[in-house]
């Protein structure tokens, strides 16, 4: 083995990598928030919507679930150029991840909605709540409790998927690593450190989700 490891460029770049990790986290959290809202809407469209809404939501969900995330990113990045829409790298990653998250979350939410007994809805209506009140205060909080664990998983996936931003020119953790690695020719060292960063990030999210669940679901 005649390869000498050089860690100095990596150590010098640690602050940059740390900032890039924050960008990764930001993209993941934003895409997750958008994904949850759209996912809820899609799930309700599939369950209660009319024919057009059902078809729209089903097509979205099946497309998001049955094509690679990277292809979806490329579609937002390069495909939309055909219509003259040129998104910034950040927007490409955000749209791609939100599209993907919404598709996966919609299926989780649908399962959650179906698991809530119909009697809960009837009882809330009997107590004088309006339909929207029933959903906002009775049904949806319970759905969130049911899908909390899958949602945590999806959050982890969002962080891992954001690494694809590297291929559309987004400078998050992987993109920054790629950039620095090609500047210094220290590919292995840089990617090893990036892997450690991702591992810590994912573990931190899981711990945070666990602590949050203890505060949220005390009843």
């Amino acid at each position: 083995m005649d390869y000498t490891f050089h860690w100095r460029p990596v150590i010098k770049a640690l602050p940059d990598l740390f900032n890039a990790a924050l960008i990764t986290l930001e993209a993941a959290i934003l895409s997750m928030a958008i994904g949850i809202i759209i996912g809820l809407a899609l799930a309700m469209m599939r369950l209660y919507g009319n024919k057009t809404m059902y078809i729209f939501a089903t097509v979205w969900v099946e497309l998001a679930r049955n094509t690679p995330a990277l292809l979806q990113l490329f579609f937002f990045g390069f495909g939309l150029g055909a219509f003259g829409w040129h998104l910034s790298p950040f927007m490409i990653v955000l749209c791609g991840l939100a599209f993907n998250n919404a598709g996966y979350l919609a299926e989780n939410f649908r399962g959650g909605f179906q698991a809530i007994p119909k009697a809960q809805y009837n009882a809330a209506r009997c107590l004088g709540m309006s339909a929207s009140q029933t959903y906002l205060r009775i049904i949806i909080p319970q759905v969130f409790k049911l899908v909390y664990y899958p949602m945590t998983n999806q959050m982890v996936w969002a962080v891992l998927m954001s690494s694809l931003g590297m291929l559309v020119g987004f400078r998050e953790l992987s993109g920054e690593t790629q950039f620095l690695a090609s500047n210094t020719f220290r590919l292995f060292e840089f990617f090893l450190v990036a892997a450690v960063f991702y591992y810590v990030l994912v573990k931190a999210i899981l711990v945070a989700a666990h602590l949050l669940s203890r505060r949220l679901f005390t009843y």
Partner: protein
Amino acid sequence: MSESASTIQFFTGFSVNDLPFLAQAAGGTLLISIISISIGSILGCLFGWALYASRYARYILGSILDIFRSVPLIIQLLLFFNFFPILGIPLEPFAAGCIVLTVYTSALVAQVARGGIEAVPESMRRASRSLGMSYFQDMRYVVWPIGARAMLPAWTGVALGVLKDSALVSVLGYLELLRASQILITRTQEPFIILAIVGAFYFALSYPIGKITARLEQRWQYD
């Protein structure tokens, strides 16, 4: 007229003649996914059994497998691909992709398999042991048939995930669907159509498998 005939055309549009190329690339996707899913699943079942059976395995093997689930696949691929030249063994993109995808699959399947074994009621296993079955007979004839049904939906999810994640091997230079789409886009300058067609290819590979398993799952539930 004569002017347009004499100019050299740099970009030729997408035509039906490109479909065989895409089909060949789809074969590449299918090949790498089938190899890594089948070997990865066998390894994953063994790992899952180890995770279930031994406490030490749960700590040591469990935390090693956890790494593969917590680091993005693209980083794993690039790390592995760049690691072997360091040792002095250059690796083909196909081989590197296969190895990384196999290990990745086995890490995901291990958790699924462990869940499958845990889904078999303890009382059933005690009953089979009381009937004089050995540990391995119990595993083979009682745990496996029941556990396999329990883990089927999750396993399909993993398999479809790996089929889609195999798109990332394009980064190493292996010719599969996504790489083919990049080549065609460079030539035709028509990203929208080509990405849509490649998406349709992926959809055609992934969607039927998901539907068939959902059907199978339903049928097994009412047995």
